[in-house]
């Protein structure tokens, strides 16, 4: 490792612009003649649209156009797609209801867009949007997944009887049933995973500019994957042909999954910029973000874990209902299936597993992947079960886990995944040492003396990242491949531009990707520029989600560097009359090993471009591209330990210690990795203690639609974290990287809840564990104890 290469804790190259106010986010962009869009949205969770009267709005000051779903349909703009086909266990395809970008006949959730006003200023657009008169005919609504499945529930899409999207299964039901029937002990839990709102700090925005002279569109948008956006906007929505559409995702202020999807507002702004003949910008206000950004989680699960007389896990049976909201979002169908049920083996050897998943429509905002996407839900099920089982069996939660760990790799689980590498004992040991697990009893007694209830909880998570080989995901129903591309352009002076299909929206790619180049080609970080987020510059890419930018995106860069290196060595060997195999590239020089012969890196690069003296038949230039298709998922894993103190008088929980021990494979920049863990853990603590989307069950109104009503963690809600890593390299990519973006949000919720339930002696507690809920659970437990 050099001072700037792989493993170096270098400050981020991108920071300067952010700390000086020079970041360029979508809402910071403006073009001449730009007008603003305001959407008319449904105030009802479920209602027929009997008519839309735009006459008054059209006459208001500054208004350029008022456009409705009918016009969008007439212009042939396609409905929003779901990109992953899931078949029910009876072989039938999922029941996908039509999802127009502007509702035409029916609105199915509060906030669904039905019309748009384009006006000269934001205020004018909003005022005119308020003047659009929609003749609503309210229909009965249903907000929760179990209520939507019940007999007599309001029906949301004609082609989805009983609101059922699919009824899917994985694993061996008979084997799991047999294991439970023959078990020495069965632990059974009813578990809900609370619905969350992603709340990237930058609200979604879009700026669309149609150039009639060129018949060309430019879209600046808050996207994690601008190429996927361009593909979907052109191929499926027919807004513009792909070669006539440039999508730019400039600086993006957080995503967490919510900026993967192509939303109605992006489609409508593009379409409206041509229709109205003006550039159109829309920026969500925070309540629009609450109402329209795809939400996360929202599962109801019953799970049973069976043990033999030696406390070995012998079977697992899981039944889950997943609330999809009113429409199927882009990757929604994959989340509770291939990103959830396939992780239900956890870190354990469990011979028989079965999981059934029913996906359900409700009159709520669509739900899709959110930091972790299915894996937090799986981890929460597994780690609540194991911790509960340990209490029921009267054994140490740590040792029950250890006794059931997968110890040999590769390990084929009964639910598709083949774990390629790991050392679960190592992360458990590291976390226990970090938390002084052995000293907990003393701390508990000390807390008791202060009138506080102290509890400890752990979670051993495993996740699947990077995403699998394209052929494999294709066979499972994915509509896209999940490779990544890169291009390494070496300039005649030796500086380097790397074009990547990954997208950074906080992850620090401009630094970590440059560190890889510095390591391999021996140049300084300042000589490397990372280019991303613009379909006119980068040829194609699949974008950033699923902790894939290191494992997949950097692997593509590594492959392209291989090619650059090979060509540079050929040129150098030719120039220095040496054998190609003897050429070394390091520290800005290209040397002949074992001699004092050398050239500057820049001299070799210049030779590639002057082309005065290249090997016979070699093309000039030094620029190479590569596509990398992953050979397998990667499997980050780790152990989190949380210690809490509960105030029995108020039910308030203080997290007094949080230890994370992660195995992310090879680490490029430890500082950035720690930052990712910190952020993920805070989001997980948010889910465990504070955040919970609340819909009124009768009206389907989102009650928690502002920061007044939906608490997000603040600096004083969390402690300083003890974060460390152990390392087993991923054998399936050239860099050994596993990925670190989601782990914190996956492992922390069960660790926190296990700690609180330990403290209060009552396992009947749902997230978010607010002070009120904890106080009630504590009271119930006191009543139960008194009764005994």
């Amino acid at each position, binding site marked *: 490792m050099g001072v700037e290469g792989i493993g170096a804790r270098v*400050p981020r190259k991108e*920071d300067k612009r952010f700390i000086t106010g*020079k970041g360029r986010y979508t809402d*910071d962009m403006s073009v001449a003649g730009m007008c603003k869009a305001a959407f008319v949205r449904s105030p009802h969770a479920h209602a027929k649209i009997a008519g839309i009267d735009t006459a008054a709005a059209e006459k208001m000051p500054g208004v350029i156009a008022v456009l409705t779903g009918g016009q969008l349909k007439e212009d042939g703009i396609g409905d929003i797609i779901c990109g992953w086909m899931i078949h029910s266990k009876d072989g039938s395809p999922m029941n996908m209801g039509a999802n127009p970008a502007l509702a035409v006949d029916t609105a199915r959730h509060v906030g669904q867009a039905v019309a748009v006003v384009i006006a000269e200023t934001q205020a004018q657009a909003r005022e005119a949007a308020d003047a659009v008169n929609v003749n609503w005919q309210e229909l009965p609504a249903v907000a929760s997944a179990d209520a939507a499945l019940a007999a007599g529930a309001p029906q949301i899409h004609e082609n989805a009887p009983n609101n059922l999207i699919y009824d899917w299964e994985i694993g061996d039901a008979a084997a799991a049933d047999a294991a439970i029937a023959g078990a020495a002990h069965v632990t059974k839990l009813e578990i809900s995973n609370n619905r969350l709102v992603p709340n*990237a700090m930058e609200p979604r925005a879009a700026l669309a500019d149609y150039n009639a002279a060129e018949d060309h569109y430019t879209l600046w948008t808050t996207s994690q994957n601008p190429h996927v956006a361009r593909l979907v906007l052109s191929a499926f929505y027919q807004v513009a042909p792909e070669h006539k559409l440039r999508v730019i995702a400039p600086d993006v202020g*957080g995503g967490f999954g919510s900026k993967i999807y192509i939303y109605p507002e992006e489609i409508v702004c593009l379409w409206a910029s041509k229709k109205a003949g003006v550039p159109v910008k829309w920026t969500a206000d925070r309540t629009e973000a609450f109402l329209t950004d795809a939400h996360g989680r929202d599962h109801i699960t019953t799970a049973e874990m069976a043990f033999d007389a030696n406390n070995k896990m012998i079977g697992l049976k899981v039944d889950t209902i997943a609330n999809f909201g009113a429409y199927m979002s882009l990757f929604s169908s994959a989340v509770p299936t291939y990103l959830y049920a396939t992780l239900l083996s956890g870190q354990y050897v469990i011979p028989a597993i079965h999981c059934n998943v029913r996906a359900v429509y409700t009159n709520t905002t669509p739900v899709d992947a959110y930091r972790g996407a299915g894996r937090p839900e799986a981890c929460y099920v597994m780690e609540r079960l194991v911790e509960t089982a340990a209490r029921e069996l009267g054994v140490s939660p740590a040792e029950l886990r250890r006794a059931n760990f997968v110890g040999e790799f590769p390990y084929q689980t009964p639910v598709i995944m083949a774990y390629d590498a790991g050392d679960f004992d190592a992360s458990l040991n590291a976390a226990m040492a970090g938390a002084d697990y052995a000293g907990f009893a003393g701390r508990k007694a000390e807390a008791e003396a202060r009138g506080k209830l102290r509890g400890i909880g752990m979670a051993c998570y495993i996740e699947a990242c990077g995403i699998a080989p394209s052929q494999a995901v294709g066979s499972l129903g994915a509509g896209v491949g999940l490779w990544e591309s890169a291009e390494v352009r070496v300039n005649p002076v030796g500086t380097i531009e790397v074009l990547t299909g990954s997208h950074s929206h906080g992850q620090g790619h401009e630094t970590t990707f440059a560190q890889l180049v510095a390591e391999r080609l021996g140049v300084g970080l300042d000589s490397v520029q990372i280019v991303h987020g613009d379909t006119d510059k980068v040829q194609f890419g699949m974008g950033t989600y699923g902790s894939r930018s290191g494992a997949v995106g950097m692997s593509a860069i590594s492959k392209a560097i291989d090619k650059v290196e090979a060509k540079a060595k050929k040129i150098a060997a030719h120039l220095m009359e040496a054998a190609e195999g003897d050429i070394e590239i390091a520290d800005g020089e290209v040397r002949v090993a074992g001699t004092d012969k050398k050239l500057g890196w820049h001299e070799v690069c210049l030779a590639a471009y002057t082309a005065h003296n290249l090997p016979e038949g070699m093309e000039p230039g030094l620029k190479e591209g590569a596509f990398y298709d992953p050979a397998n998922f990667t499997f980050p894993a780790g152990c989190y330990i949380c210690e809490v103190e509960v105030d029995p008088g108020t039910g308030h929980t203080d997290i007094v210690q949080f230890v994370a021990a992660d195995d992310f494979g090879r680490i490029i920049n430890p500082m950035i990795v720690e930052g990712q863990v910190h952020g993920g853990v805070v989001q997980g603590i948010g889910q465990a203690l504070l955040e919970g989307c609340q819909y009124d069950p009768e009206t389907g109104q989102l009650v928690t639609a502002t*920061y007044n009503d939906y608490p997000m963690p603040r600096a004083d809600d969390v402690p300083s974290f003890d974060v460390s890593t152990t390392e087993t390299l991923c054998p399936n990519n050239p860099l050994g990287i596993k990925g670190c973006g989601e782990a914190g949000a996956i492992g922390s919720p069960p660790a926190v809840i296990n700690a609180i339930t330990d403290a209060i002696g009552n396992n009947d507690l749902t997230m978010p564990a607010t002070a009120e809920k904890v106080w009630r659970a504590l009271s119930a437990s006191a009543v139960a104890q008194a009764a005994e």
Partner: protein
Amino acid sequence: MANVSMTVNGRAVERTVEDRTLLVQFLREDLGLTGTHVGCDTSQCGACVVHIDGKAVKSCTTLAAQVDGASITTIEGLANGVDLHPVQAAFKEHHGLQCGFCTPGMIMAAVDMIERHGGKLDEKTVREELEGNRERHHGC
């Protein structure tokens, strides 16, 4: 309409704006100072914090007309030329930001906090004082 004149980052500016123009809109749209951000509608996220006559204020809940005659410092005006303010430098050195969206507000709030406490701050106070700033990353 209102005529407003103020000093922004040391430069005198004068504009005629709609009465309802918020200070953050004035900074971003009239003056092109897009480093100050809007992250919510309820004065809670703190991405819009600027200094008005040396005090940290949320510019999303301040009318431009209210600060007629005031001296405003935004994130763009914090550094002394090419020399970063020590708080800016510290955010970089200690990886206090990720996506950068909340960062300008965090930095402006932090500078004000340090000045108010005369440089005497402990971790608990800092965490409590950041009550008015939201972040989804860490520091971001």
